């Protein structure tokens, strides 16, 4: 951001107009800059954007959860216990007085004499001690080895007082643990569908831009046609057409393909535009004259020169996919239970009465907002950094 302001301020004012971007340090940095690779330059510029760096760390945290959701979960996400429905969130405290001794307040349940339902309240006076790296249910790490170590859990795994960091839903399932699994699905859907979009987009956009002619015409018309389709209704119609008896993994891949189906067009257009302008560049002509094959020219000369832009655009496309998946699943036409995604979890929050009773059911929505925010900030940072020599 500050970089942008600098440049804009400079173009505005005559005295510094012709001076290249930089400051007193320019001369010292000059040599370093001129020998650095493109990726290094992008990284240097990206690093200056504090907000983007923090967001990148947030995303890394999210993807660590994606790798081992079980480790962060405190319970089996499918375990239902009707008696323990709608337990409120128990805030995590790290210190007891001044000593490091993590605890959560206990919950006490009372049966409501009118509705005959169990109602739970936080009891701040009673503390449930917590331990890190505690034992819990068994799971496999990345399908490789089995363990039962979890990040967090009650000090005594056999105690009656369990912990519900984000409360429970109407079936008494632990919202926190379900969020961890939901994170895995939703973040993966976003990533995979964008990867698919990039593959389609680069392939078709590249063909269109490099070869031109009738191929270009056909691909252009196809992109226009797809872009003039109403996105959400068509997505809904497509997901509604998925057979009901498909397994969760099948549905998962079908959803990513459906999301990528329209998503690739924007990238395709961009790649085509880049190819068209690059084709005129001298270094491509030089490679051609030097006898490089077309394949080599494309893969070794053209694609690397706009790779950073593609990455920036893709980063900005992921949040769109995440929101789309969440929305579709929320409407009941995306990922289907028993698979868990943020959208599936939010289905539980659809009823306003339930929501008033258990606002913590909105927590997956907060996760969506944080993830999308982080992706957008990182994407913006990358886009600005992708232009290392300034605008």
């Amino acid at each position: 951001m500050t970089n942008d302001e600098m440049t804009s301020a400079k173009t505005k004012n005559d005295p510094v107009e012709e001076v290249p971007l930089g400051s007193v340090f320019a001369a010292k940095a000059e040599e370093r800059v001129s020998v650095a690779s493109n990726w290094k330059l992008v990284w240097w510029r990206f690093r200056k954007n504090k907000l983007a760096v923090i967001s990148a760390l947030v995303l890394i945290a999210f993807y660590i959860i994606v790798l081992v959701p079980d480790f962060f979960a405190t319970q089996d996400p499918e375990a239902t216990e009707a008696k323990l429905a709608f337990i409120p969130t128990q805030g995590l405290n790290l210190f007891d007085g001044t000593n490091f001794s993590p605890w959560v307040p206990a919950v006490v349940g009372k049966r409501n004499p009118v509705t005959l339902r169990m109602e739970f309240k936080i009891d701040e006076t009673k503390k449930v001690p917590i331990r890190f790296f505690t034992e819990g249910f068994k799971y496999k790490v990345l399908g490789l080895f089995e363990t039962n170590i979890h990040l967090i859990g009650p000090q005594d795994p056999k105690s009656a007082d369990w912990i519900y960091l984000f409360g429970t839903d109407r079936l008494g399932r632990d919202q926190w643990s379900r969020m961890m699994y939901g994170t895995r699905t939703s973040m993966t859907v976003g990533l995979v569908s964008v990867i698919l979009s990039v593959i389609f987009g680069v392939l078709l956009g590249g063909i269109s831009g490099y070869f031109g002619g009738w191929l270009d015409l056909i691909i252009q018309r196809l992109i226009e046609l797809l872009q003039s389709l109403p996105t959400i209704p068509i997505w809904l119609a497509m997901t509604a057409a998925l057979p009901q008896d498909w397994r969760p993994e099948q549905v998962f891949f079908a959803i990513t393909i459906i999301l990528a189906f329209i998503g690739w067009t924007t990238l395709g257009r961009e790649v085509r535009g880049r190819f068209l302008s690059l084709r005129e560049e001298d270094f491509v002509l030089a490679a051609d004259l030097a006898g490089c094959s077309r394949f080599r020219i494309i893969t070794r000369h053209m694609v690397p020169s706009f790779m950073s832009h593609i990455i920036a655009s893709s980063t900005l496309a992921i949040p769109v996919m995440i929101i789309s998946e969440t929305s579709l699943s929320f409407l009941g036409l995306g990922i289907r239970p028993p698979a868990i995604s943020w959208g599936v979890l939010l289905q539980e929050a659809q009823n306003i009465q339930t929501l008033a009773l258990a606002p913590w059911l909105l927590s997956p929505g907060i996760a969506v907002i944080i993830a999308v925010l982080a992706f957008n900030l990182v994407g913006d940072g990358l886009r600005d950094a992708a232009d290392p020599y300034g605008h």
Partner: protein
Amino acid sequence: MLRFIVQRLLLLPFLLILFSIIVFWLVQAPPGDFLTSYIATLASGGSSINEAQVEALKRQFGLDQPGYVQYLLWMESISKGDLGLSLEYQRPNTELIGERLVLTIALALFAFFITWAVAIPAGIYSATHQNSLLDYFFAVLNYIGVATPNFMLALILMWIAFSNFGLSITGLFSPEYIQAPWSGERVVDLLKHIWLPAIVLGIAGTARLTRVMRANLLDELNKPYVVSARAKGLSEWKLVWKYPVRLAINPLVSTIGWYLPQLFSGSLIVATVMNLQNIGPLLLRALTQQDMYLAGSILLIYCFLTIVGTLISDVLLALVDPRIRMEGV
């Protein structure tokens, strides 16, 4: 430009036919048909219908015919202005869609006007008061606005209204007007309810448009014509409004082409959450019930609205920008 618009208008029927094929293929793609899911629903309710009834229903809706015949039958009735019969409701689709379509368009247009009415002044303020407190405030609002899925925003607002004020802010009408015929009071009642869903629907677009307006205006403010206008002795505000703002808005006009369609289809989600009687929830139900002629018709309407939205943006762009208007006349 005129030629371009005429060209687009001539292309419209072909595009619609193409879309109708895609749409029809999509709605009849799921295994089974309406009757299988209908029988399943009946069975889960404990009742059933006999073989003869099923056969009769099949014949009535042409479900015993091959797909292309079904399509042609559907097309035939559409060409007569009849959208067919809903399998589930046993009523003409035109009747079912009718008012809901009006409400869909009204909601989208409302959201659109709110977007522009907020985003343009906010963008101008941000650009002319770069790095001011309000500029940062708008920037934060922008990021949050873009990051919040609109159903999430709807849920949060509904929850706040319900748990703090005991209010239910769903629906487009007060209960007494839901079934009432159109009248002045009903329109007033609609206006009382429509603004909240319109804000929910338009917030992401508003956030984005504010940012684009700010960036465009900052670009324009650095252009030489601003200096020459200033040197004329024009006052700063008059100058900003007459020249750079006008030029910064021009490219925004082309965003209408994707924004209006996005509002039309985005209203589907908001409508479902906030229980609005537009074509969105109807489509959702038709899709899950495999009420294929109804679903197909609604999808086709969405396609039509999308194309019209793009067309409107092209015409507007030509109207505001002489450079485009005069090209190729």
